[in-house]
């Protein structure tokens, strides 16, 4: 049997080859076949999840809720030292010095990355901004979000903090950060579906030991982190509760 492995479409393109290398390691570690199928966007990913096509996924926190509660997935491991934080930025020459300076009707550049967009909109709330009183422009990636700010197509942008920090220096120098989240507990996780239930212990053990393998650090560096840490089931439940509170909107 060939298992289907996928990665949340919000990964940085610079780590693309790293995920293929990881897929090769995965097959050796578990002595079974995995096919890495990358989705172009979240709509495709969500269709694949709904159709029960995915067996293993490096999932963002927003999708983790659906995967655990509705699809019987188990969280195995999280990247060590990496939390999902968000940056709200404007063009460097913007008059806005704080989120509270942004007026209703402002044009917001964001992506279809669900957790980043959700947290970003929460960071805009102190200005009284919400989905009904902003003009939202969805870009394909964070470089294009930056481009919309620099070209004056939008006044404010929502970025995954890690993606913002990875923008080129000339681009970053033309942007101004209004706020950077410091939530600490929201992170991606590697999650296994029901068809992998008998391989969960072996896979978790192999993931946690990967950093100690001779070529482990080089492989992990290609994914942008230094190790996998084990995730307790309650830790994931807690993160899902947290995401549920953030997604709650009585007006919705």
């Amino acid at each position, binding site marked *: 049997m060939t298992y289907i492995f996928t990665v949340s479409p919000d990964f940085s393109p610079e780590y693309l080859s790293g995920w293929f290398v990881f897929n090769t390691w995965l097959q050796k570690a578990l002595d079974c076949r995995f096919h890495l199928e990358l989705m172009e966007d979240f709509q495709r990913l969500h269709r694949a999840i709904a159709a029960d096509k995915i067996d293993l996924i490096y999932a963002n926190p927003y999708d983790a809720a659906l995967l655990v509660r509705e699809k019987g997935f188990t969280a195995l491991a999280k990247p060590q030292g990496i939390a999902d934080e968000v940056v709200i930025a404007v063009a460097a020459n913007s008059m806005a010095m704080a989120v509270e300076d942004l007026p209703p009707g402002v044009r917001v550049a964001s992506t279809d990355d669900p957790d980043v967009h959700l947290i970003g909109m929460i960071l805009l*709330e102190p200005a009284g901004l919400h989905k009904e009183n902003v003009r939202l422009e969805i870009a394909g990636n964070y470089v294009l979000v930056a481009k919309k700010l620099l070209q004056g197509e939008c006044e404010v942008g929502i970025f995954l903090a890690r993606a913002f920090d990875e923008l080129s220096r000339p681009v970053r120098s033309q942007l101004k950060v209004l706020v950077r989240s410091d939530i600490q507990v929201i992170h991606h996780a590697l999650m296994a579906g029901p068809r992998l239930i008998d391989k969960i212990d072996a896979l978790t053990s192999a993931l946690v030991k990967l950093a100690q393998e001779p070529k482990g650090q080089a492989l992990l560096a290609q994914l942008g982190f230094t190790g996998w840490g084990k995730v307790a089931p309650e830790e994931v439940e807690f993160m899902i509760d947290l995401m549920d509170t953030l997604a709650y909107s009585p007006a919705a």
Partner: protein
Amino acid sequence: MLADMNPAWVTGDFQEKVIKLYGLGVRRVLVVDEEVPYPDGRLIVSRTDLTGVITHVNRSFVEMSGYAEEELIGAPHSILRHPDMPKAAFRDLWDTIQRGQIWQGHVKNLRKDGRYYWVKATVIPNVRCGRIIGYTSVRRKPDRRKVEECKMLYAQMRAKEQLDCL
């Protein structure tokens, strides 16, 4: 039982007030008329058991409350209760979450040093295997216009509660 606030914790001029806490009796609190701004980008997170006793706090909770983590774990969540908050707000909160629903509202919290901070709070029941095992509360930076609305609303609600007590 929740210990009274100690004048040694408080800096500056303060007013002493007595608040009645549901199931806990009365607590003497010391109130300083000074707001501490909500820190940008932070979420204040805590979890309680079914009776409202704190079981987990994050770093932002500790920093904004002014209490040490050891003082918070095991304490009732009403350790943060400010006397300007109407009882009806918390009654609504408990009624809502005990029904298994999410509660959201603006809350004025009392710090250990007597100062206060406003939050937009969301409280969610933690459901495991179909059973509520506790509650998670997440606070975020509020819109100041909402805070001003709540100041007026809560003052009216408290005035009515005081009249009802006569």
